């Protein structure tokens, strides 16, 4: 949460335009995760906890190296381990660092009803502002990566901030700093995309990974976290990375046309009964026209 130094360009649940959005050009920042050189050491998990001030919580063992089944409100960064059987029958151990993807078109922000609970900075970072969060959980439905997690005690939602506090001070995120193999990189989106594409080409040309490629899904306008995958045609194998993520259409409709249809319907309802009163007024009490109370 470094809103003092970062320019906000999108605000959740905000009526009207965002002051200051689009006034200055800013580099899009990006984290590059090269799954082909990740060794699953979990140094980034520890660095994340340490920087953000969380203590190590209980792990749950599920016949895997994975620390726990999914990220948690106080555990934003998780290496997902998956044993993948290749077509030739050989086994491949896939390791993918899972966290918020910092979507250019963030579903969490679109779904959020609370003014300023989720913001996007001009550098692309999507950040939750817990002091404005009302704990409704709409962001959970909006996110195509199942990332926001709820603290039921404080009733606030949490996720990776891309270390916006560090980045705001010109530092790289804590996870990047801790990675011993250099599989994590941080820089401008342009540079990271170039680096990722070169690495994917290297994997295709020299290491026999013909399907190697870069995961930067267009369905959410591209992401502020991109992956190099050995097989970009099968991202699901990497702990359920969605193949073509996009904001659920229900959420788009709910936050788009449904608002105006609903608001207009309510408005016309109120206007309608008012006009009815102007035209017909209150009902009079009177004796019925004939003994049996009107028409037979």
């Amino acid at each position, binding site marked *: 949460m470094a809103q003092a130094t970062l320019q906000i360009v999108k605000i959740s*649940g*905000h*009526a009207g335009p965002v002051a200051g959005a689009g006034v200055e050009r800013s580099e899009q920042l990006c984290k590059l995760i090269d799954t082909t050189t990740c060794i699953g050491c979990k140094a980034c998990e520890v660095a994340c906890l340490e920087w953000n001030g969380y203590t190590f919580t209980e792990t749950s063992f599920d016949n895997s190296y994975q620390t726990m089944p999914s990220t948690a409100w106080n555990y934003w960064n998780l290496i997902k381990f998956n044993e993948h059987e290749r077509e030739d029958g050989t086994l491949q151990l896939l390791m993918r660092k899972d966290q918020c993807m910092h979507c250019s078109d963030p579903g969490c922000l679109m779904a959020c*009803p*609370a*003014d300023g609970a989720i913001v996007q900075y001009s550098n692309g970072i999507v950040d939750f502002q817990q002091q*404005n*969060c*009302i*704990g*409704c*959980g*709409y962001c*959970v*439905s909006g996110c195509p990566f*199942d990332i926001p*997690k*709820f603290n039921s005690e404080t*009733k606030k939602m949490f996720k990776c901030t891309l270390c916006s506090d560090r980045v705001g001070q010109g530092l790289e995120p804590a996870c990047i700093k801790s990675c011993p193999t250099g599989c994590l990189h941080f820089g401008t989106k342009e540079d990271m995309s170039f680096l990722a594409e070169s690495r994917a080409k290297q994997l295709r040309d020299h290491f026999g990974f013909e399907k190697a490629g870069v995961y930067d899904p267009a369905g959410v306008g591209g992401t502020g976290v991109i992956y190099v995958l050995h097989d970009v045609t099968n991202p699901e194998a990497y702990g*359920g990375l969605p193949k073509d993520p996009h904001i*659920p259409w*229900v*959420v788009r409709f*709910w936050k788009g046309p*449904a*608002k105006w249809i*609903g*608001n207009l*319907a*309510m408005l016309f*309802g*109120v206007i309608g*009964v008012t006009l*009815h*009163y102007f035209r*017909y*007024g*209150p*009902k*009079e*009490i*009177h*004796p*019925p*026209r004939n003994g*049996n*109370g*009107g*028409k*037979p």
Partner: protein
Amino acid sequence: MSSHVISTPTTRTTGEPGERILRYTLGERVNHWFAAFTYSYCLITGLAFWSPYMYWLAAIVGGGPTARFWHPWLGLAFTASMFWMYQMWDRDMRITEADRRWAAAMKSYIENDDQNLPPEGRFNYGQKLFFWLMFYGIILLLISGIGLWFVEGIPWSLRWLRYLSVTVHVVAAMATIGGFIIHVYMGTAMVRGGFTSIIRGEVSTAWAKTHHRLWYEEVSKRQTPPGQAGTRR
């Protein structure tokens, strides 16, 4: 004193002007206002969550987090009040032959041409529609609301349930709001006497004859306390 009449309903049903009969028992009135309060709270907070342009509504009920905390609980209270109402009015709310005749002449009712209307029982067809709208509405709101309340409890593989919950909650809420607008308008401005009847329980015999003639005839024929006859209690 009218309060005396309420606590010991009279059996006088001679139709003299100024005479009053009991239309809603104390229990029915308490139920109605409990439902009204809990629904209104959910309406105000729900509208705050619905649109950024109405988010300020959350401020008048204690702010966003407070509104979010109480919305589901008062929703449960409203559900309870609707089942309580169902338990009291289920039989009175069934659609009858008289309702079908009345429904066919609804245009006359809307245009306040009431003398052309077939007689109605304790509740007219419109009131019954509103009751069933709210009753089935709250069932949908309850089920979908639980999905929204415990959205993280719905596993990722069943996430279509998350989206379905949102859809059902919005559609059901909008339907009840439509009914609610008409109900408040009719109960306060359009049908004079209705509002006081749901507060103090009484209506004049002339009112009863005009709006609910079959009910009036029934309670006066039985020569039993009218309110009690009307509610089977």
